């Protein structure tokens, strides 16, 4: 079970879990008609480092000498209900079908043990009325800081404690740092036993 931070501060915090975060998918204009498409994520977690988030509001005050460390946006990742992820149905309302993960067999166990780089399993305390969930690092997105500050005031669910939030962010950075290697162009060398 994930541990939560006690209390809260009046700014966006790394590890914040926020409800109904909007992501602007696209803005298009044709024949004088403006079309804006947004995806609303029912739950998302803030991944941006807390030291950056701590500096940002200080630099927005009039007393600040410069805005050198001002943030344009914060990184977040969506949180899906684990049962939906197992069934591959967490994005059906967007018209997308995901791969299934067998909950009862090894794939489900690997997911819950955080052995799959793409996902982070969240089992929040019983006091938080959210079923077991999964962070999907592949679907990370950004949101403007000012938008998040206002949204957080009414939509913050909870904040992970420092140790658990660092675990999430470190696993996210490891996910981004993966190196995709090409398939070998030559056949692998025969092993001694095969000779």
């Amino acid at each position: 079970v994930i541990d939560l931070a006690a209390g809260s501060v009046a700014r966006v915090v790394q590890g914040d879990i926020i409800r109904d975060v909007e992501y602007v998918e696209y803005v298009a204009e044709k024949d004088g008609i403006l079309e804006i498409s947004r995806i609303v994520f029912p739950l998302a977690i803030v991944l941006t480092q807390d030291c950056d988030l701590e500096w940002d509001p200080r630099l927005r005050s009039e007393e600040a000498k410069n805005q050198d460390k001002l943030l344009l946006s914060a990184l977040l990742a969506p949180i899906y209900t684990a049962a939906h992820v197992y069934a591959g149905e967490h994005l059906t309302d967007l018209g997308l079908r995901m791969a299934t993960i067998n909950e009862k067999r090894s794939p489900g166990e690997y997911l819950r043990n955080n052995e799959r780089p793409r996902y982070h399993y969240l089992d929040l305390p019983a006091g938080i009325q959210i079923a077991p969930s999964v962070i999907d690092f592949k679907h990370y997105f950004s949101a403007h800081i000012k938008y998040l500050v206002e949204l957080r005031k009414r939509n913050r669910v909870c904040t992970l404690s420092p140790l658990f939030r660092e675990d999430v962010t470190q696993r996210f950075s490891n996910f981004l740092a993966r190196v995709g290697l090409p398939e070998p162009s030559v056949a692998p060398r025969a092993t001694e036993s095969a000779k």
Partner: protein
Amino acid sequence: VPKSEPPFDPRYLVGSQDTQTREDKAAEEVPPAPRPPDSYATAKPRRIVTRAQIVP
């Protein structure tokens, strides 16, 4: 008058494998907090498309 022996307490038995009292075991066997039911499942992400006329 023969002295009565104190009641046997396994915690004071040197080398005993079972040094836990019934109370200790009961304390360890407290069931975990119940998981939230499926009704707490979060809604799925949804798309909202807004169209508006640009006023020149």
